[in-house]
């Protein structure tokens, strides 16, 4: 479960402070797959980063008792000039996978992302599709209670999307997902609950169809 208590988040821009959320309080029930929907710039990714602890609110607290992955996004938490393998190793070390466990994860990512020998090229030479495949595969190599997935699946080709859904079904037996997506079919297939982010407010819809309707309206 997640609980947000009086969360305020703003960013300082050259033109002054812009508030994304003000005094936001809500509780998300445990054991649900959460879909985040909303227009571009509404604050979906910010909310996801807050949930994952990758960003901190100006005031207020976010409480959870679950392990949460890093936000898996299109830009990816990668150092561009290092090779794919080095980046994978880096994340493995951050999450405490050493030795045989690390080699196992590298093999997994290499196979899942189908990058073959590209794994030893710098990440900045990858296409966006390749990068998101590596980012997604890397997060799947670790066990978390919640996976934070930010539009990664939408850039892949049809075959990769199938693969993603397959491994997702496997993972979702034991874990949950927080999914940011503009693809409503994906949301309705994978999520049990929808959070509509709109004008700094968040509306919770227990019924996914209803949430999608409210978004499209």
């Amino acid at each position, binding site marked *: 479960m997640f609980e947000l208590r009086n969360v305020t988040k703003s*960013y*300082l*821009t050259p033109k002054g402070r*812009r508030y994304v959320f003000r005094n936001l309080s809500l509780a998300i029930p445990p054991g649900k797959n959460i879909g985040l929907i909303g227009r571009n710039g509404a604050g979906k990714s910010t909310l996801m*980063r807050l949930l*994952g*602890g*990758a*960003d*901190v609110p*100006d005031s207020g607290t976010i409480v959870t008792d679950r392990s949460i992955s*890093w*936000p898996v*996004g299109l*830009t*990816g*938490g*990668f*150092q*561009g000039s290092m090779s794919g393998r080095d980046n994978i190793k880096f*994340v493995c070390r*951050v*999450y405490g996978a050493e030795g045989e466990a690390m080699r196992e994860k590298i093999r997994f990512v290499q196979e899942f992302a189908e990058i073959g020998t590209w794994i030893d090229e710098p990440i900045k030479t990858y296409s966006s599709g390749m990068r998101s495949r590596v980012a997604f595969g890397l997060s799947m190599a670790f066990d978390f209670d919640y996976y934070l997935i930010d539009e990664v699946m939408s850039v892949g080709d049809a075959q990769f999307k199938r693969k993603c859904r397959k491994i997702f079904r496997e993972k979702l037996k034991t874990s949950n997902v927080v999914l940011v997506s503009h693809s409503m079919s994906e949301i309705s297939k994978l999520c049990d609950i929808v959070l509509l982010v709109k004008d700094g407010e968040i509306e919770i819809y227990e019924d996914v169809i209803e949430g999608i309707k409210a978004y499209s309206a």
Partner: protein
Amino acid sequence: MGAVWILIEPICHLLIFSLLYTMIRGRTISGVEYPVFVLVGMAPFLLYRNTALRLMDSLRENRSLFGYKQIKPLDTYIARVIVEACISGLVYALIVFGFAWWGFDMSINNPLMWFMTLALGLLFAFSLGMVLALITHALPSLKLVIRMVFFPLYFISGVLIPAAYLPHALMPILLLNPFLHLTELIRGEVLPHYAMVDGISIGYVTGFTLVLLFISLGSYRARRLHLISTKNG
């Protein structure tokens, strides 16, 4: 190309100034060959300068890594210092071996104190770099000014000439600069017959470093949440 440049930069500096100096004043200074004299002071100075300046960019360069909540801006600062120190150490060792092979006397008079002073200087550069990084995070346009300030520092820190050659009337002001103390101390520890100017003290550098370290860590603590916030800096 970048890898070659880190080796070529100090060698270029050395060659140009050695040539200029030999043409103007003759070949030796304080009883040692001029290139040796310059190398001993210049290598640490370049390390400190690079460390301090590169810390200003480390936040921007490693932005994507802050997605992992375990990684904090301070980690990237420390990592940058370690990388810079390793690179400089390697380049310095290469040049020293080159010089020794060429026939220069590269022995170090007081190796333990020399190493201590180098470490102190690195700590100073780290504190300075962190303060600069925090300042330029708040005011990014200052980056250019700070880079320009480091250029005259090269000349008033006694990198190319002994501090004794600097104008005596200005000495009280010049001695406020910890870099001058550091280069003089390092030279004094490497070269057996080097005469430091009056007023050089390791106490001053230590005090300056501690105060700066306190300020930098304190302001880092106060600003740490702003630093990972994605939309600024």
